[in-house]
């Protein structure tokens, strides 16, 4: 201990204290502060970058999910549209068929009615014609028949007899 005190140098103590405190102050201003600030800035930068990467990943996932949803919706819509179109087509075909049938029926009835009326007309004409012919024939027959007396009488008689039968 005595040796220690004996060896103790005030000058060295003074210079060490002055130089060391000076060094601390100088380094604090010109080295430690910029170094520590830079390191801290870098660390926070890395942390932020990691966080934003995580966020971007999450967003990406969301986006993909959205896309999937949209795709599904689109598919469903297409499906629905196709179904509608098919239904429409079927309906149209159905309608067209019904209309055509109706039209046809109508035409058939019209045709039938026309045929009927034509038939009637034809029949009437035929009757008239037949009646004319019959009269003509009857006239001719009667003329020939009635050229002799006996025959005339006989006819009258038959006709009368027929009448009475009625």
């Amino acid at each position, binding site marked *: 201990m005595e040796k220690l005190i004996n060896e103790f140098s005030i000058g060295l*103590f003074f210079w060490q204290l002055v130089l060391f405190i000076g060094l601390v102050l100088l380094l604090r201003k010109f080295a430690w502060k910029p170094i520590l600030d830079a390191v801290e800035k870098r660390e926070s930068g890395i942390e932020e970058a990691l966080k934003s990467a995580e966020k971007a990943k999450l967003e990406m996932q969301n986006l993909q999910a959205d896309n999937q949803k949209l795709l599904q919706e689109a598919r469903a819509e297409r499906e629905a549209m196709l179904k509608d179109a098919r239904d429409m087509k079927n309906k149209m075909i159905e309608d067209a068929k019904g209309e055509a049938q109706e039209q046809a029926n109508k035409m058939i009835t019209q045709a039938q009615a026309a045929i009927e009326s034509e038939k009637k007309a034809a029949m009437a004409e035929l009757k008239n014609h037949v009646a004319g012919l019959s009269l003509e024939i009857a006239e001719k027959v009667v003329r020939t028949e009635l050229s002799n007396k006996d025959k005339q009488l006989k006819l009258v008689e038959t006709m009368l007899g027929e009448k009475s039968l009625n």
Partner: protein
Amino acid sequence: MQNIISIKTICLLFFLVSILSFANKEKHSEELNVKTEIKEYINHHLLDSYDFSLTSYTTDSGDHKYIGFPLPVILWDNGLKVFSSSKLHHGEKVAEVDGNYYKSYHGKIYKTDASGTINYDENHHATNAKPLDFSITKNVFTIFIIGLLMFFMFTRMAKSYKSSALPKGIGRGLEPIILYIRDDIAIPNIGIKKYKRYMPYLLTVFFFIWIINLLGLTPLGINVTNNIAVTLALALVTYFLTTFTANKNYWGHIFWMPGVPWPMRIILAPIELLGTLIKPFSLMIRLYANITAGHIVLMSIIGLMFIFKNWLGSSLSFGLAFALSLLELLVAALQAYIFTMLSALYFGSAVEEPHHDH
């Protein structure tokens, strides 16, 4: 098992070597000379000096020649006296400045008469007057150089951050250490809220002690941290930083310890107060003693090489000195770490927020 055997073999060899050297009686007196010379050399190495000498040799005519350069001597002796240390001639001559005579003796400057007489007391201590000595000694010069080196090294590193987020050059190696001090010394001991205030001191003290310890292991013969004045200055800075930044909670724990009965508080107060002084005192002694012991042991083992003067003993000493040098490399960093760590611990206790659990 292999290791134990090899250690035993080495020990045995050492034992044999020492017996052999003791058996050789003819060389004994010569050896004694070498031994005292080594002892003196080690003592001289541990002391500060007024000039920066790397090595010295003795010429054939018996003169000591030193290789190095002189440094300024600054004395306060009824006025400022500044002169070159070359005037002192390594304590061999008396320096005359403005009519006063000075002589360096065992690393200290004494005021003497013109012939350089040193008076001794019964314990062989010089009783001459000692002027106030603010000389730029070898250690002061080294501290200054280290300061400059650190300043340029770390400002360069700080500049490299301006161009890119990653450090360049020397900063690449230094940044992990800075981060280690921040993340594993400062933050766990002081706390995330208040550690920033102490970072400049912790970083500076760590690198300062580390670099200066490493420099002590070079063959330049520098040894700064084995001067008690240097470690005292460092410990004092820690002490004053702790004392002046301490909060109410810290003083409360010293003068009026919470959670104990009041008579105990009165007994504890002086003990706690003494504790605040013992903490930096232990910092001072620990650093000083570790580095001094390392230097003494290392130099003694190197000295053994010259005592043995045979191939076995000298080469074993060399191997041991080499192994010890590696250990000292570790100690250099370890002491810097311990000083920084304990300083951080003391700062942490000074700014600790009160816990409400007692």
